[in-house]
């Protein structure tokens, strides 16, 4: 098959799976997940083929795979929509396809496929376990998710959105994929809609990202009005970019390129949960864990960063925009890392670390380190998906313990309820350890080290304040990661539930192992050439390949020992300090970092509530509803009533009754009745007589026409 055709086909299987499941196979759990996983596998296969073919192309950046069709008529021309695979898309496809496939497989186990239906399970609530009678001995086992098929339909649609976003060659279809993901995010966060917290989190995520989306749409519209095109290949030509940079915008001091870049970047802020729109991501942990892994670590938030990276040539035109980007990224990285220090929920820690790591990428982009941002995007996707899936595995194991003891008030997600899981869940522990070390940037062996090191090196070369901020953030990252690992896996079990935890089934552990291999191995493709000892052993493939996306290839950095030492120190130091501090901590009270402002996330939710939500509610209720609607508009409407009624009465009495009814109405009826009475005798019901009459008429008319026209 031609590669272009194949690219067109990549997003389709998950969408088909969505419709198939929703329309036909909703009742059959096994069939539903077979369809969904099969679709993910097809997309994965297509992506891998495209990826391998992309590797074979010399200088893919200049000659990408592209194909487009006429989509919307715009006056005389057409808006063309299509697909594009350049180096950036190729590597993104690679990690998206892998993580999506792994998460699909993981979901089968996570939702307890093959277990009996629960005793008291309700749709829209997490399953509570089922009582099984085995050899006369009753015990409780996990029960299957009631809305199992629906889950697979939703993540299928979600994967469709992500693939669409990745392969599209223009901003509009990218935006379509973006919005589909927004919808799926809403649906999946609120998947257990029976819980109020899940409902609220879903609405919150939807509304918050919506703010970013509106700005992004404005940016797209502005871009279209200036350039007349939304296709990446057409925008990123030198002439178009120069035009964009030279036209001033309506905002003082910004070129239109800067304004557009800023608007698009606000979209990214919303989607990738950057400060100040980061508040939705931690709450989104209300969804099932595969959702957290998929949406809020590996793909959707990556989609935001991907878009920012994609628009890099546009962003980099204006230095003001670039500094805003760099500032937001660096600030978010540090800020989220501090909050993560004081979280006790295993998933929340990961959520804040996600925000923080995304901040790293954004910061890297802001200082112009294009390749480093891409590199970290990929490695982060792998190890963060791994961590989330691992935490899901932990929670699952803990729920096993909860079912065993029957004490449902024990929170299976609280790290202080855990401890000592290393022996209970060895595969989960080792893979989680690999993921955690990758996140912390454990030197040499993990992928996270190489990507983070590259960001730090770039920051050191270009922007010292950013470098310092990121270094501190990296230190905190290593610290809270080790805190998490220590509290969860090391030491002795702190509760009976933890003591009875179980390793999870193979459907869940297999993705963990696969992802941990990728989390280690993927770092080796991007080792800088001048790195001591290892540099040059493997060519710095990523830099050459991804750098080819840009018109001007970015130069490889000179090697400098300072950032290397910094990353070594912060990673090892953070890990060591974390282990030492939390080795003997057994309850939240003993934790010295449970500071109020950290625990409450700097009171951001409360601030937003007071600053935005309360006034808006007040305005809507008092001003819009009471004064505008009830007083003003209803008053006008009430005026209309009597007036119209008066006119209507007049017309009825002086026009309708005498003229229309008496004369036209009754008169025509009487005339019709009279003539019908006379004419009905001609209607015999005999079809052939009718036919003869019709024929006579036809012949007469025909003869008349013939002779009249002829003579």
């Amino acid at each position: 098959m031609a590669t272009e055709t194949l690219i067109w086909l990549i997003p389709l299987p998950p969408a088909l799976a969505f419709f198939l499941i929703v329309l036909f196979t909703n009742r059959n759990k096994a069939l539903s997940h077979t369809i969904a996983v099969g679709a993910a596998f097809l997309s994965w296969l297509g992506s891998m083929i495209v990826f391998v073919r992309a590797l074979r192309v010399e200088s893919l950046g200049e000659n990408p795979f592209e194909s487009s069709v006429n989509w919307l008529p715009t006056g005389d021309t057409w808006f063309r929509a299509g697909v594009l695979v350049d180096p950036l898309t190729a590597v993104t496809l690679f990690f998206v396809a892998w993580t999506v496939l792994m998460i699909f497989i993981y979901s089968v186990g996570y939702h307890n496929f093959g277990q009996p239906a629960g005793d008291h399970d309700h749709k829209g609530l997490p399953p509570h376990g089922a009582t099984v009678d085995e050899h006369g001995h009753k015990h409780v086992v996990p029960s299957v998710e009631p809305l199992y098929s629906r889950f697979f339909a939703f993540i299928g649609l979600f994967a469709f959105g992500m693939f669409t976003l990745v392969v599209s060659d223009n901003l509009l279809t990218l935006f379509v994929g973006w919005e589909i993901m927004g919808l799926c995010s809403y649906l999946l966060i609120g998947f257990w809609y029976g819980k109020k917290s899940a409902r609220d989190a879903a609405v919150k995520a939807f509304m918050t990202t919506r703010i970013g989306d509106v700005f992004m749409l404005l940016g797209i519209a502005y871009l279209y009005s200036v350039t007349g095109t939304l296709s990446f290949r057409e925008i990123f030509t030198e002439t178009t970019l120069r035009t964009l940079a030279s036209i001033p915008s309506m905002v003082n001091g910004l070129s239109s390129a800067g304004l557009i870049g800023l608007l698009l970047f606000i979209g990214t802020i919303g989607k990738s949960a950057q400060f100040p729109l980061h508040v939705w991501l931690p709450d989104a942990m209300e969804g099932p864990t595969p959702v957290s892994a998929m949406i809020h670590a590996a793909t959707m938030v990556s989609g935001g960063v991907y878009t920012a990276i994609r628009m890099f040539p546009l962003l980099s035109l204006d230095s003001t925009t670039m500094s805003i980007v760099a500032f937001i990224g660096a600030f978010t990285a540090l800020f989220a890392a501090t909050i993560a220090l004081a979280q006790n929920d295993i998933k929340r820690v990961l959520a804040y670390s996600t925000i923080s790591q995304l901040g790293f990428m954004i910061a890297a982009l802001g200082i112009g380190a294009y390749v480093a941002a891409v590199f970290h995007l990929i490695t982060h996707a792998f190890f963060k998906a791994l961590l989330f899936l691992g935490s899901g595995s932990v929670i699952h194991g803990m729920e096993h313990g909860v079912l065993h003891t029957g004490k449902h008030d024990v929170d299976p997600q609280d790290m202080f309820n855990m401890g000592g899981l290393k022996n209970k869940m060895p595969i989960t522990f080792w893979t989680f350890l690999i993921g955690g070390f990758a996140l912390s940037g454990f030197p040499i062996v993990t992928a996270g080290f190489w990507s983070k090191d590259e960001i730090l090196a770039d920051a050191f070369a270009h922007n010292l304040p950013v470098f310092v901020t990121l270094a501190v953030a990296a230190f905190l990252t290593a610290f809270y990661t080790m805190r998490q690992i220590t509290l969860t896996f090391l030491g002795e079990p702190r509760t009976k539930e933890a003591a009875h935890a179980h390793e999870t089934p193979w459907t869940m552990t297999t993705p963990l192992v696969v992802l941990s291999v990728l989390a280690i191995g993927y770092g080796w493709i991007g080792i800088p050439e001048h790195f001591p000892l290892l540099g040059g052993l493997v060519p710095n493939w990523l830099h050459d390949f991804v750098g080819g996306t840009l018109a001007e290839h970015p130069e490889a950095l000179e090697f400098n020992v300072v950032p290397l030492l910094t990353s070594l120190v912060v990673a090892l130091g953070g890990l060591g300090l974390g282990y030492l501090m939390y080795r003997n901590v057994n309850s939240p009270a003993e934790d010295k970092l449970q500071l109020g402002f950290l625990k409450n996330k700097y009171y951001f939710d409360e601030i937003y509530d007071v600053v935005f939500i309360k006034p808006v509610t007040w305005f809507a209720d008092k001003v819009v509803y009471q004064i505008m609607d009830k007083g003003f508009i209803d008053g006008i409407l009430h005026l209309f009533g009597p007036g119209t009624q008066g006119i209507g009465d007049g017309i009825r009495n002086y026009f309708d009754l005498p003229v229309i009814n008496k004369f036209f109405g009754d008169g025509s009826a009487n005339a019709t009745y009279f003539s019908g009475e006379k004419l009905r005798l001609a209607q015999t019901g005999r079809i052939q007589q009718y036919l003869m009459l019709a024929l006579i008429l036809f012949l007469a008319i025909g003869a008349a026409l013939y002779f009249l026209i002829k003579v």
Partner: protein
Amino acid sequence: MVPLSWYLIFSAALFSVGLFGVLTRRNAVAILLGVELMLNSVNVNLAAFWRYGNVTDIAGQVFAIIVFAVAAAEVSVGLALVISIYRKRNTVIADDLDMLKF
């Protein structure tokens, strides 16, 4: 060589005979037989005009094929109606089926 006018006269005659059948037969099935004759005369005309016009322009034969399809549809529905009526009223004499009158 047969002149075109022969075909036209033949088909006109066939048409008129069919028309006579449609107008006068009492049996509803026989009326449909007449309709078939009329449709056939049309087909003869179409084929003749194809042959005597531009042979490479196949339109005449295409129309004839479509007339075949229409004839098949007409007969199947017509006969189904006849049989249905026969079941309900035990007659297929067209003059007896005068429920359409006042």
